[in-house]
């Protein structure tokens, strides 16, 4: 058995992994892979690896893992069958044989492929082709929307910007002071600030009138012309003309 192994050069680097080495060893049996003796192959492999180690060659870990697995397979194949153990050693051996067959098939296919008449080695394309010309014509695309939007943006970007503040209905502070001081003179009792607003004031104008009238009331109180009264925060605000 070691004779078979010895026919292969001891050069662990030359193998593309343990399966490659196994296939090379299997071929030395000179039988169809389907008739391969797995037990014999295991012995071949173990002898080869041992020999390499005796020669103090560095043996990569995966070769040793394969060696350990094959040693286990061998013992399982030789010892009485334990029906509890799944998969059976025969199944493991069959799987190994199937893998070797597949690797062998691809190795032979690769050899046949590479031996074909290959472009640039056996057959040649034209050495100096004139080449074909493609004359490119661009068909430009743009949509009317793009055109109009672009003009809008240019206009927006370059036209002089003029800001117009929309006219809003407001009561100015001067108007409110005049109005409140006039009305307060006509009244004797405390009146709510709302009663000083124009009866027809609505919406934003009413808000503006209320705010202006409030500031007007504060100003008039500062001048000592009105008195203000409020019972608590947010309670109605009352005005009355100051005692002369």
């Amino acid at each position, binding site marked *: 058995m070691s004779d078979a192994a010895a026919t292969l050069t001891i050069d662990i680097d030359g193998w593309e992994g343990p399966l490659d080495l196994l296939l090379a060893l299997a071929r030395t049996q000179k039988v169809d892979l389907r008739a391969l003796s797995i037990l014999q192959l295991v012995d071949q492999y173990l002898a080869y690896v041992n020999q390499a180690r005796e020669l103090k060659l560095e043996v990569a870990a995966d070769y040793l893992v394969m060696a350990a697995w094959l040693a286990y397979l061998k013992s399982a194949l030789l010892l009485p069958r334990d029906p509890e153990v799944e998969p059976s050693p025969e199944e493991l051996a069959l799987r190994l044989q199937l893998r070797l067959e597949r690797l062998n098939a691809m190795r032979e296919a690769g050899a046949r492929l590479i031996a074909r008449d290959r472009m640039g080695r056996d057959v*040649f*394309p*034209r*050495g*100096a082709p*004139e080449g*074909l*010309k*493609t*004359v*490119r*014509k*661009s*068909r*430009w*695309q*743009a*949509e*009317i929307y*793009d*055109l*109009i*939007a*672009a*003009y*809008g*943006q*240019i*206009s*927006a*970007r*370059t036209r002089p910007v003029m800001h117009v503040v929309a006219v809003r209905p407001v009561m100015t502070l001067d108007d409110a002071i005049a109005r409140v001081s006039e009305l307060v003179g006509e009244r004797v009792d405390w009146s709510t600030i709302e009663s000083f607003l124009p009866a027809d004031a609505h*919406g*934003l104008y009413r808000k503006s009138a209320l705010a202006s009238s409030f500031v007007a009331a504060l100003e008039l109180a500062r001048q000592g012309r009105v008195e203000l009264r409020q019972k608590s925060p947010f309670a109605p605000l009352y005005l009355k003309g100051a005692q002369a």
Partner: protein
Amino acid sequence: MTAPDETMRAVEAVLFAADAPMTVADLRAYVGEEADLPAALAALATDYAGRGIELVERGGRWHFQTASDLANFLRRDREDSRKLSRAGIETLAIIAYHEPVTRAEIESIRGVQISKGTLDVLMEAGWIRPAGRREVPGRPLLFATTPEFLTHFGLSSRRDLPGIDDLRAAGLLDPVDLAFDAAQSDAEAVETADEDD
């Protein structure tokens, strides 16, 4: 066309694969000393006469070439659909709205210089044309749109282009101010709703 002999086949293959025309001496180095090359070349030239490929001799050098009457088949036109650049579309828009217009005027309206390529592209697209010169110092060229421009954009005349007011109404002008006004009226709507409560 007779069945070629081995010398003819070899010459045929060598000339085909060669990357430059070859003299008889060049060929001999490949095909062999004994071969009757002049005979093989003459026979090949006859074989190829009238085909799409011809064997020709120029100054003692032989090569295959495509038949000259077929040159029109060796090129083809390809139309690529390409989108106009931003500069292109802006320039086109200015010409369309202001034509006839000089390049300097386009630049002044755009606020950016235009490259010559931009006008070239619009010209190539067939959308603008030179339209005389402005009679001012320097006599600058004027540009205007073409009938193809109207066709491409589905316009029956330039008057179909929306005016500034239309653009504003469509939200295409001054989008910042428009957004502001929209936000304002939303706010008022909310206030009114509050008062109704």
